[in-house]
C-alpha cells in the first residue's frame, strides 16, 4: 500500500526534526512522558523546536506549548535535558496551565 497515506511526513514532528538536522539546524525534542487526569495529548506525543523557536507537533491542546518552546531554546543552548511539569496548581500555574484540569510531564532534550 502507499505508505504516505499512513505517515503524514509534512506534519510528522520526528520527520521534521530529522529534516531540520539535515539542514544544519539545532533542534530540541519535547516528549510527553506522563499524564494524570484529563490530558489532551497522549504519552509519547512530540513537540519539536529549532533554535529560532519554530515548532511542530504538540504536547497539549496549545495550552503549554509556548512555555515548552521557551525552555527548549534553553535546552538547545545548554545541551542539558529538562523535565517539565504542567498542571493547574495555582494562579501562577494558570498562566501556562492546562485548563482541562489534567497534569502532564514533558521531557525536553537536545537532538545530538
Amino acid at each position, binding site marked *: *500500500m502507499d505508505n504516505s497515506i*499512513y*505517515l503524514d511526513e509534512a506534519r510528522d514532528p*520526528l*520527520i521534521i526534526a*530529522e529534516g531540520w*538536522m539535515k539542514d544544519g539546524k539545532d533542534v530540541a*525534542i519535547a516528549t510527553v512522558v506522563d499524564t494524570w487526569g484529563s490530558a489532551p495529548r497522549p504519552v*509519547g506525543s512530540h513537540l519539536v523546536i529549532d533554535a529560532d523557536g519554530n515548532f511542530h507537533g504538540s504536547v497539549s491542546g496549545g495550552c503549554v506549548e509556548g512555555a515548552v518552546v521557551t525552555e527548549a531554546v534553553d535546552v538547545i543552548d545548554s545541551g542539558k535535558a529538562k523535565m517539565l511539569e504542567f498542571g493547574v496548581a495555582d494562579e501562577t500555574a494558570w498562566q501556562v496551565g492546562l485548563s482541562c484540569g489534567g497534569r502532564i510531564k514533558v*521531557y525536553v532534550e537536545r537532538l545530538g
Partner: protein
Amino acid sequence: MDPYALKTLNAERRARRAAILVTDLGDGRDRIVREGDQVAGDLGTAIAKAFRTGNSGSVEAEGRTFFLNAHLPQPRLVVIGAVHISQALAPMAKIAGYPVEIIDPRTAFATPDRFPDVALHAEWPEDVLSRQPLDGYTALAAVTHDPKIDDFALKAALDANCFYVGALGSRKTHAKRVERLLALGATADQIACIHAPIGLDIGAASPAEIAVAILAQTVHAFRSRGLESKGAVA
C-alpha cells in the same frame, strides 16, 4: 536524543516496522529496539508489552527509569472484493482506526460511486500487491467468493504474516480453498491461520452484520498479537 537513533527510528516508521525508542531519563541516553530484538529482565518484559499494546510509558528497571516510546505502524485492512459487505466494512473499520483499501479487478464493482472516500484499486491483487506489499500490521479479508481473485491475495497475506487473514465462504467452500492453497505452496500451518468462515460468530446475516463480525475479529486479532499461538482461534 541521539541523531542516529532518530534517523533509525524514522527509517523504521517509513518502512512500516514497529520500533521502540528507549530513553534512560537519568542520563538521557537512548537506543532503538526493533520487534524481535532480545532484551533481558524487567526492561525486556516492559518492551514486549509495549510492542503488543502500542502504549508508551515509563518503567523502573535495574534501578533506573526508562521511557519507552512505542512506534507501531498504523494497522490497516485490505479487502479483496468491492462487494456489498465491503461497502459497510470500509466506513466502520475507518472509524475503529483501521483504514481500508479495497482491491477488485471487476470494474463494475470497484467504482468510486459505490465506495466514496475509500482507497480503491480496480486491478488484480497480483498487480496492486506487487508494488504495495502486505505486512504484519495489515489485515486481509477476502470476500469475493471467486478463487481467481481471492486465492493469490490469501497466499500473499499468509506469506507476509498479516496479523489477520479472513476468507468468506462456507466450510465446504473453504475445504476446496485449502486444496488450492496447498497446491499454491502454502503450508498446513499457514492455512490454519485463515479465519474461515469469516468473522466472529455473532449470528450475522446481513452484509452490514457480517462487516461487524469481520471488524470485531480483526480487532481481536490485532489486540491479541503475541498472546496466542497462531491459528488457535478459528
